[in-house]
């Protein structure tokens, strides 16, 4: 043996292990037996006293109108172990709670300790319960104070706001998305933790105007569904957000899934001719088509596809000589198809992507769709002209409304927003809306030109003449999209989507209004008769409420203009 390994090092190892073992056993004993978490120098940890309740923050509209509020409510429950006879308890409770005896017995069935009999008892019910309980007449029956949501605006913007469940946790909409902001974790050193308040960009006045018109459409035309949006065209803030059929949020448990569907963001559909404003803007901006040469519309347009076959696109009527302005005025399919075919498919596709189609805006709205737009390599010979008049592309109402922002912002696409600001309980603003430019889509000249052309549609003889308001000039476009029948896989003859978009005032827009009506069943199918009147009426209401400047300047003196006039005099 050499020198190696001769040192008796092993006792050292055993000693070390023993010391370690003793420390660990001592510490384990200290933790488990004496439960001494504080005295040890190794863990001077004191469990903090945390709040016993979290008060959920309030949701307001942009002006401070309450949309969702936390309120206390009372429930009636039974502690079954202290009940002598279930039958007798049910019999006693029945007249107080306005429930039948069998209903109450059903609630207690299969439970062993606790049975919830009625959520949210009314004040009268609570008082008579309280009297009987105090008199010892209802053994085992208890009244519990709980906290839950109240939604004073009931069905207005219901799908956007969403709701909380029985345990006051957000289940849908913004209540779901912002659950942790509205209802943060209980904080140490306070008894009640208050959540943050959220102010939406929604303006309840405009929401009312919109919902009134949506309701009117629903009554007159009996559609499957309606999406409506009003947007501030200068900032991208959404002022009204409607999905019909709607529901009273306070009674969410009685709703059907189609009532809770948040259509403006979630539903995807083929937009129809409204889309021509975007395809025309793309064509004009690309400058590849010879748009200065007018197109002669004889009611149908025949073109040769790359595979050599002839294909026909038909119009509602023979529009005669049609230029870009007339495309929007008469909604001529042939002309837009003709110009689209002179445009490079890849460039056209990229322009549409720039408008925000085929991507989502990442709004705090659960389930926002990106829509659908196939890549050019998957297009058929008919796809390019078809997309130009708004078929073969899937969009959301949100995308359709937001894509109109470039017309009012020198060609710049704005990010739509539903959140105006988030405020801490002490009023400190944690986050507030900032106008966000996404990208330059078209040139300022193109934007201005298309906006001007849109006013043609509201002129006499235009398709969107009913979107014109008496007091304010609007720039508008209507559309009547054919909807694909999933059964036959062809476009249905009488299932259409009637829609209308408007920017107003036409001279310098402040608002974008978009309404899409799915499957009107009144016999009237067109966007010009189903959707456009509602758009015109909302525009009228905005002026009446003083929210939009009237175009009738003859009886108004606008200080700025007068000043300009004075300067120009010499």
């Amino acid at each position, binding site marked *: 043996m050499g020198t190696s390994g001769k040192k008796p090092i092993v006792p050292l190892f055993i000693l070390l292990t023993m010391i370690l073992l003793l420390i660990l056993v001592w510490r384990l004993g200290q933790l*488990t037996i004496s439960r001494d978490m504080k005295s040890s120098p190794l863990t001077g*940890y004191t469990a903090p006293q945390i709040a016993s309740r979290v008060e959920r923050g309030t949701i307001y509209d942009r002006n401070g109108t309450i949309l969702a509020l936390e309120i206390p409510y009372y429930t009636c429950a039974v502690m079954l172990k202290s009940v002598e006879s279930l039958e007798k308890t049910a019999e006693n409770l029945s007249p107080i709670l306005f429930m039948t005896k069998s209903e109450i017995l059903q609630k207690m069935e299969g439970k062993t300790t606790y049975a919830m009999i009625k959520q949210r008892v009314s004040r009268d019910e609570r008082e008579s319960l309280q009297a009987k309980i105090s008199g010892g007449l209802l053994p085992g029956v208890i009244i519990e104070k709980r906290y839950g949501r109240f939604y004073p605006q009931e069905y207005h913007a219901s799908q956007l706001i969403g709701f909380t469940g029985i345990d006051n946790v957000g289940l849908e909409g913004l209540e779901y998305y912002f659950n942790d902001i509205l209802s943060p974790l209980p904080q140490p050193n306070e008894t009640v933790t208050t959540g943050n308040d959220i102010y939406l960009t929604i303006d309840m006045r405009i929401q009312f105007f919109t919902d009134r018109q949506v309701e009117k459409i629903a009554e007159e035309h009996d559609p499957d569904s309606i999406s409506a949006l009003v947007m501030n065209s200068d900032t991208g803030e959404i002022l009204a957000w409607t999905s019909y059929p709607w529901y009273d949020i306070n009674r969410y448990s009685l709703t059907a899934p189609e009532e809770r569907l948040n259509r403006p963001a979630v539903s995807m559909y083929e937009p129809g001719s409204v889309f021509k404003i975007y395809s025309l803007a793309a064509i004009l901006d690309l400058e590849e088509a010879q748009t200065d040469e007018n197109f002669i519309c004889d009611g149908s347009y025949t073109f040769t596809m790359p595979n050599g076959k002839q294909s026909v696109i038909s119009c509602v009527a023979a529009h005669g000589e049609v230029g870009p302005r007339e495309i929007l005025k008469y909604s001529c399919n042939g002309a837009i198809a003709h110009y689209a075919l002179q445009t490079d498919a890849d460039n056209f596709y990229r322009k549409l992507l720039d408008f925000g189609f085929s991507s989502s805006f990442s709004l705090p709205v659960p389930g926002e769709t990106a829509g659908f737009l196939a890549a050019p390599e998957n297009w058929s010979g008919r796809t390019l002209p078809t997309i130009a008049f708004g078929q073969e592309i899937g969009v959301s109402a949100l995308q359709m409304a937001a894509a109109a922002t470039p017309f009012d912002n020198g060609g710049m696409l704005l990010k739509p927003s539903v959140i105006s600001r988030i405020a801490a309980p002490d009023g400190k603003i944690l986050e507030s809306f900032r106008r966000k430019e996404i990208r330059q889509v078209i040139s300022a000249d193109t934007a201005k030109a298309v906006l001007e052309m849109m006013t043609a549609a509201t002129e006499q003889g235009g398709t969107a003449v009913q979107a014109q308001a008496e007091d304010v000039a609007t720039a508008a476009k209507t559309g009547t999209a054919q909807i694909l029948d999933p059964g036959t896989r062809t476009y249905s003859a009488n299932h259409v989507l009637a829609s209308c978009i408007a920017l107003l005032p036409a001279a310098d827009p402040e608002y974008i209004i978009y309404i899409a009506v799915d499957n009107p069943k009144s016999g009237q199918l067109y966007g010009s008769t189903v959707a456009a009147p509602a758009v015109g009426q909302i525009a009228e209401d905005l002026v009446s409420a003083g929210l939009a400047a009237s175009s009738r300047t003859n009886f108004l003196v606008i200080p700025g203009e007068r000043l300009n006039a004075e300067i120009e005099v010499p």
Partner: protein
Amino acid sequence: MLENQPAENKLSTYMLLFVLITVLLLLLATGLSSLYSASYDKAMRLGLQSNYFFRRQFLFSLAGIAAAAVIYFLPIRVIRLLIPLLLVGSIILMLLTLFTSLGETQLGARRWITIGSIGFQPSELVKVSTILFLANYFDKHRDQLRQFSYTVYPAAVVGVFALMIFMQRDFSTTVIFLFVSFSLFAASGTKISYLAYLAALVGIPGILLLFTEPYRVRRLIGFLFKDFDPSGINYQVNASLMAVSSGGLMGKGWGNGDYKYGLLPEVQSDFVFASFVEETGFLGGLFVLLLFGMIAAVGFFGAARLREHDLFLYFLGIGVTSLIVFQAYMNIGVVIGVFPPTGIPLPFFSQGLTSLIVNLGMGGLLSKVLAASGKYRNSIAYQPLDSDRDFQEVLYE
């Protein structure tokens, strides 16, 4: 010297081995059942079958036992021949983990190679290969170790491996690895001054590297100042302490713990001991601590008997024993707040297939050491001859 003294009877020859195997099986059984209790809720939360973690761990423990048996019956000669192969394999696997797309990052650490649905953790293999390598090297060069160059070579090998483990962002395994390697150097009989050099060489950059990652610094601050960020960096340890503390003397009962229901992160792996003590109390925790203590006792005792007879097995016994026991104590120390939080699994308890197989394989190696030591069960008698003098010399050099 009573070399190759015939055994009086089989029982006393294999006494230590018998104790070791009993302890290992007890640990494995306790570990598996505690893993099932701690992990079923987590498995269901992940959308898996409730026994997902348990089933995999159980199947791999059977594989591990088979591996241990194979190792036990392999001749030592063969094992020693396999060492270079193991070393090269370890290096290749470590490089693959670090630099190819085979390596997988979990919770910020790049420690795994994924083969099918099974993540393999090469650093576990490195620990055993290095112990085998050092034992073999120190045995072969037992007479030259007092020359500096013969200490530098194995130290360099250890250093390279340590660096690779460190690059996988596995600070705690690096520390354990260096600690066990250092123990072997200490046992090897090299000069104290060399040991001091090595300690300085590793220790100073080690402490500097400790501060290269913000999370390590936060963990250290969290450990030193308990009120710092109680819901953040200290949350896990606080939850763990509360779980342990709620166990009391007898525990809440097998399977009755509350902290596994999402309150204690990583309850199925590094913090399984907290859930175990919550359910079995001080007595359960003591039982496990003592079982690991028994491994230390039989392992070190058995190794000591071989010091005069078979240096390879002597070093191997020391290395394997200290690796298993110090890993276990380090993990338990973290769980009960004696050490700052690090990611060391508890052998035979924590969910982790590589760790389980390697630990059982090490059980096989240790069994081999103890079986050999049975032949020399009288030689532990202390012999105060020149060996003692050597040690004194070394100490006061």
